[in-house]
């Protein structure tokens, strides 16, 4: 970029648009208001960047997350001051917990009014400080371009996360100088991407000597780009070792592969959890030993040497002590691991590995996801199995979820063979995530099949986004597993609170078919097994937004389950297992 371009004087609003263009932004999700009108005016006068008008700012964040997770790009959001910013907080926290790169621009009252309790004023940087990776208040228009570029750098480098830029209205009107991205590197913040090779050598040594090894893989591998997933798959196959993934890591390793043990953790598979418990060498790549994964920390994988690969040094030794920490980008580390494994002529201990697989196959034979088939009542698992059958073989399917039982069933029953095709609120567990996230994914992939697997309670938290789907002709499919309960809450009340279903039954649900109709979409319903396939086929065929009301067994619980405060080898496999004292007293306080 020439010096002359750099010196062009532009209004703050035009600087915002130019910076977004220079960052390669094609679409932003937002909602206008008084404090961002100048930016909306600049948006109106250009055609490069598309704006998707959501119906609630929280949904703008989730849509941007869906966009980011399905493309690997930074999701961009534009909201106004005050309530616009506070409504964004849930989405920002969600993106922070799940390490999703987001740049969120918020309007702010004019600089001379800041601190005066002006109309629609809030302390946006104060409120969002703990729920963003970083945030900025730009008081001088001449710092605006640099700050915007820096925000993109921070959002996507290192462990990704959301960044807020708060822009007072007078700064949007003021004229200032533009700076190019190359001219705007931050003074600090240089995350380490290349690992310490001595540590990688050490890890490879341990791995080659392992008798009962396991790969434990998280969303960090997906964040490191598709190449990281390819390298992971290559390395896992090269070693012949078993691999399990977290909820966030689904798709990093092909689910159809025999070496994949399924998801691990609270509702993970029997074989994955027992393999974690019994392994002697664990390689954790891009996961963070979350409490949903570890169960009782003091009894987590008690006899293993732990290798932990993460780009964020603060993830290492946070919950679980590890023996070989490797700081770096997953793709770089995996590349080095493969190279060193080959160069040192390493081989798995064939005899020990055969024995290990025999043990794992024994666990796998328990068929832990088995459920009772019923002739008439639709089991939620059955509905998802039929959905899986209907979408199998397609690689243009993007699945999002809300939060609860349906989310766990979706993770257990749907096939994820590729990264970036699965979007769920893992860390924060945000009900209302799925529909806007599906909208975001559909905006990025207009011809793909984007399905929000939902519960009837969660979907009502952001149901207004049906209007967004209709406005932009986004044919998202909302696949509601309707059991009329907040199912996961009910399940915990059943297991831990003596079956006292306090406030977890939804007394006055809308008719979801009519609701779809009212929004201008298509509503479909199945109430018995014989209707399931037809409804799914129709849902996929219709090229418009669809709500499917899948009326499922109200009492079905999600198994397997590691109750709070229990270890991996203390799973409940089904309703027949003794549930009294499912959770020890000290586990009751756990969420």
């Amino acid at each position: 970029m020439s010096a002359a371009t750099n010196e062009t004087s532009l209004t703050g609003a035009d600087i915002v648009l130019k910076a977004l263009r220079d960052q390669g932004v094609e679409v932003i999700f937002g909602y206008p208001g008084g404090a961002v009108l100048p930016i909306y005016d600049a948006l109106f006068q250009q055609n490069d960047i598309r704006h998707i008008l959501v119906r609630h700012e929280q949904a703008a964040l989730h849509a941007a997350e869906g966009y980011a997770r399905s493309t690997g790009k930074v999701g961009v959001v534009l909201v106004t001051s005050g309530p616009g910013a506070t409504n964004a907080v849930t989405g920002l926290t969600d993106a922070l917990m799940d390490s999703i790169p987001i740049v969120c621009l918020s309007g702010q009252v004019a600089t001379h009014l800041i601190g005066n309790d002006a109309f629609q004023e809030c302390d946006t940087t104060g409120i969002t400080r703990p729920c963003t990776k970083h945030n900025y208040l730009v008081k001088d228009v001449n710092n605006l371009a640099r700050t915007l570029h820096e925000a993109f750098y921070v959002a996507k480098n290192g462990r990704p996360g959301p960044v807020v830029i708060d822009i007072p209205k007078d700064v949007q009107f003021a004229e200032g100088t533009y700076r190019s991205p190359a001219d705007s590197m931050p003074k600090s913040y240089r995350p380490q991407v290349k690992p310490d090779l001595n540590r990688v050598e050490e890890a490879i040594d341990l791995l080659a000597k392992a008798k009962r090894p396991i790969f434990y893989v998280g969303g960090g591998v997906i964040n490191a780009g598709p190449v990281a997933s390819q390298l992971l798959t290559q390395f896992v196959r090269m070693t012949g070792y078993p691999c399990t993934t977290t909820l966030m890591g689904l798709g990093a390793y092909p689910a159809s592969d025999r070496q994949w043990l399924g998801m691990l953790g609270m509702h993970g598979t029997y074989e994955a959890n027992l393999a974690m418990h019994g392994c002697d060498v664990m390689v954790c790549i891009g996961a963070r030993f979350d409490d949903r994964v570890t169960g009782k920390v003091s009894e987590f994988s008690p006899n293993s040497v732990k290798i932990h690969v993460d780009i964020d040094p603060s993830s290492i030794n946070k919950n679980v002590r590890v023996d070989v920490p490797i700081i770096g980008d997953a793709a770089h580390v995996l590349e080095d691991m493969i190279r060193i494994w080959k160069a040192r002529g390493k081989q798995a201990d064939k005899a020990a590995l055969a024995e290990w697989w025999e043990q794992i196959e024994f666990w796998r034979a328990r068929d832990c996801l088995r459920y009772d088939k019923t002739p008439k009542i639709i089991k939620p698992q059955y509905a998802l199995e039929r959905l899986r059958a209907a979408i199998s073989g397609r690689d243009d399917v993007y699945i999002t979820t809300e939060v609860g039982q349906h989310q766990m069933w979706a993770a257990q029953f749907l096939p994820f063979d590729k990264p970036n095709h699965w979007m769920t609120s893992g860390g924060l567990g945000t009900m209302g995530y799925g529909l806007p996230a599906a909208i975001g994914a559909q905006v990025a992939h207009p011809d793909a099949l984007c399905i929000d697997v939902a519960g009837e309670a969660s979907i009502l938290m952001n149901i207004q986004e049906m209007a967004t789907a209709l406005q932009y002709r986004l044919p998202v499919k909302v696949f509601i597993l309707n059991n009329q309960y907040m199912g996961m809450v009910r399940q915990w009340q059943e297991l831990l609170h003596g079956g006292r279903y306090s406030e977890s039954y939804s007394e006055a649900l809308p008719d979801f078919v009519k609701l779809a109709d009212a929004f201008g979409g298509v509503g479909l319903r199945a109430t018995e097994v014989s209707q399931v396939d037809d409804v799914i086929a129709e849902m996929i065929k219709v090229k418009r937004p669809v709500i499917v009301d899948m009326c499922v067994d109200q009492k079905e619980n999600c198994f397997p389950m590691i109750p709070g405060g229990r270890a991996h080898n203390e799973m409940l496999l089904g309703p027949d297992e003794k549930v009294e004292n499912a959770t020890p007293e000290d586990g009751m306080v756990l969420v």
Partner: protein
Amino acid sequence: MTARPSPFASTAIERHTISILVDNEPGVLARVIGLFSGRGYNIESLTVAEVDRDATLSRVTIVTSGTPMIIEQIKAQLGRLVPVHRVHDLTLEGPFVERETALVKVAGTGEKRVEALRLADVFKARVVDATITSFVFEITGQGEELDRFIGLMAELGLVGVSRTGVVAMSRGPGGI
């Protein structure tokens, strides 16, 4: 199968003095403090002031306590804050000096007043304000030294104390 013994096995609570170089920009202190309160870490003392005007850098000195694993977490969490340039654990990195200043106001007359002045002399505290009935002493030293002086003054008419918190620096020629 074992790797090297973990340095984080100990559950003993240790006191660490941590020096951080940060961009002197709005909100940076709130970020540091928010990190400690949000994650439940202890702050025994925190001081901050700009140390390089041209580069707009501030130096923060934090005295904290926790198990070795917690201390490691604190440093890693500080290190990933965007405006943080460097994090040094002075306690781990070799000998260092730690100093703190206190202003101590003592009011009284007669023998107590004389004794307060005499003890101030012993502790090399300076008189920075005096009236017929009061003194303000300035004392600089290690924290425990200040504690001892303040403890003695408590019996001699202590009115109030203002302490700066700890500043610290490694010994020898090396910089942060």
